[in-house]
């Protein structure tokens, strides 16, 4: 009834090719943007920022990156944690060496550095695929974390091996570390996610994105019709690592403030982001955001219910939590293997036909 495109006529080609062809979609997007950028910053507080909003936004950015690689180009990667570490350590070195460049360019540059590293580790994808590739990307994960632990240059020879974000301001407002202004931190990260989600949506429907999808669906057939696997696969690795690198940079500098490579970027991060895109929906920008939201909030909710609601002690609660998360993931995969994005699509279809069943 409300969600129906009847009467929306397209009179020229650019309308036809619009990113959101249905007017209602545009209104929803505008409303979401309004809530994100106007309402939330007014009511934000420290707890909400650090426990929910920042993790959600940062993981959403990482999930977008992994979804480009795994969802659009079909290359399974388990090196996300390692690539996030590359982003984090790049921005650390940059913030110490050239703080005058400004925070946003530094994040972008760390993204680019990660893209270069990612492309390097993407090279095996030209020879191997599937689970062999997934295991090969684990090499990146373990090697990079080891490198950041062992080579003093990366953490400026500091005795603890930790990196701590130096204070940085953006337009005169503090955005890193514990003194950062919550609303400013939030707006900064939210803008990154919004801009790069839009970018991902555009790149995915353009020539490059179509090449990726052709490779994903069947690489030999794609090669026969003239898609170059070398360019398509490596560009997917580069763009994906660019996103993940930026996510890692923001993760370290804005959210954590200080980080230690073995804990902050271990293999569980890789799995977490992979879960996000599977539960959200492979090959969907919306899915990356939904999956990140789901997996960030579910453990918090579970913990609150268990500890707050039933008064379980926290050690047992942690075990029950991990069990429940695992079980929920299995149930979710059984019920809807195509993820939350598919559910959303089904809802939209139903809404268009409502009140008729078909």
């Amino acid at each position, binding site marked *: 009834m409300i969600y129906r495109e009847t009467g929306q006529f397209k009179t020229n080609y650019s309308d036809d090719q619009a990113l959101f062809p249905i007017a209602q979609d545009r209104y929803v997007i505008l409303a979401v943007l309004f809530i994100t950028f106007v309402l939330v910053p007014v009511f934000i507080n420290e707890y909400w920022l650090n426990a929910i909003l920042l993790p959600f936004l940062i993981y959403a950015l990482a999930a977008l990156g992994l979804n480009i690689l795994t969802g659009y180009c079909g290359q399974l990667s388990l090196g996300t944690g390692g690539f996030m570490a590359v982003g984090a350590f790049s921005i650390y070195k940059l913030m110490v060496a050239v703080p005058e460049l400004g925070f946003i360019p530094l994040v972008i540059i760390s993204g680019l550095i990660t893209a270069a590293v990612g492309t390097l580790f993407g090279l095996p994808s030209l020879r*191997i695929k599937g689970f062999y590739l997934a295991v*090969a990307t*684990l*090499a990146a994960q373990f090697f990079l974390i080891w490198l950041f632990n062992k080579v003093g240059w990366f953490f400026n020879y500091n005795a603890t091996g930790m990196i701590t974000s130096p204070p940085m301001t953006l337009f005169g407002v503090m955005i890193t570390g514990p003194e950062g202004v919550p609303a400013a931190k939030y707006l900064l990260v939210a803008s990154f996610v919004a801009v790069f989600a839009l970018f991902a949506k555009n790149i995915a429907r353009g020539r490059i994105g179509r090449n990726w999808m052709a490779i994903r669906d069947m690489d030999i057939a794609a090669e026969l019709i003239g898609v170059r696997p070398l360019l398509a696969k490596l560009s997917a690795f580069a763009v994906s690592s660019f996103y993940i690198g930026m996510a890692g940079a923001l993760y370290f500098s804005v959210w954590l403030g200080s980080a230690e490579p073995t804990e902050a970027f271990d293999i569980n991060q890789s799995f977490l982001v992979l879960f996000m895109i599977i539960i959200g929906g492979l090959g969907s920008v919306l899915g990356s955001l939904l999956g990140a939201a789901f997996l960030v909030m579910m453990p918090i909710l579970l913990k609150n219910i268990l500890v707050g609601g039933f008064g379980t002690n926290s050690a047992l609660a942690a075990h029950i939590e991990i*069990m429940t998360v*695992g079980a929920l*993931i299995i149930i979710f995969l059984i019920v809807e293997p195509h993820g939350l994005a598919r559910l959303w699509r089904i809802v939209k279809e139903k809404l268009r036909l409502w009140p008729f069943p078909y």
Partner: protein
Amino acid sequence: MTFFIEVVLSGLMAGVMYSLVALGFVLIFKASGIFNFAQGVMALFAALTLVGFMEKFGMPVWLAIAGTIGVMIALAWLIERLMLRHLVNQEPIILFMATIGLAYVLEGAGDILWGSDVKLLDIGIPQGASDWMLDTFDIYVEKLEVFAAVTAAILVVFLAVFFQKTRIGRALRAVADDHQAALSVGISLHTIWVIVWSVAGIVALVAGIMWGSKSGVQFSLSLIALKALPVLILGGFTSVPGAIIGGMIIGVGEKVAEVYLGPFVGGAIENWFAYMLALAFLLFRPQGLFGERIIERV
């Protein structure tokens, strides 16, 4: 020279331990095409159950082992019933993620049931240096590792006979070859999956006993799955001998690199060296050492 032989030998023995875990992966991958990430946690779970039976219920070793085998079979049945049955015909990546979910569930369940503190596992496997080797060749060899190697050899022979000669083994190979064709000649997929997950559970128990005797039963036991992955890609996902030989290559490579290369780059390279070795290898043979030849059709 003696030192080098010692390093190689200890690498070989460590490799056998990796092979034990990799074997479980291969079995399940062969029979159902599932990349079972939970194999390491299954080893942990089996070891925890064994220790639990022995300590909490005071069972003798043989009864505890029998009981644990029973638990692993029940677990296989549950996994098939609650999880695999509903995921037939899904993409491999979905199945892979489901097994990671399973790993979480087992990890939580094991901790809740048996507690998360480090436990000692002692079922009477000889430990310490082998005096005979020390006296005769002046080489240090850990008895436990020799025992593990012998067990692995027996296990492989047993599995080979099981796969090649028995009726169930033939059915397993048929399923591995082609699910639909196997169904059409009257092989029940569900039964086969229960059997193969049970066998993988028993292999996990053996791996759990060996690793548990070596370093205590604790959470880090589940991480040996990560050690087994390079072994798998080196040996090929579908090959039982590949898992053994791959394990030995990785074990030796890792130890030799750690001893002779490690000091120059700051040590602790064990974590990633195996992966790099396997990766370099894959560039020349994408299907692994003994993997089936990849034939691609459009």
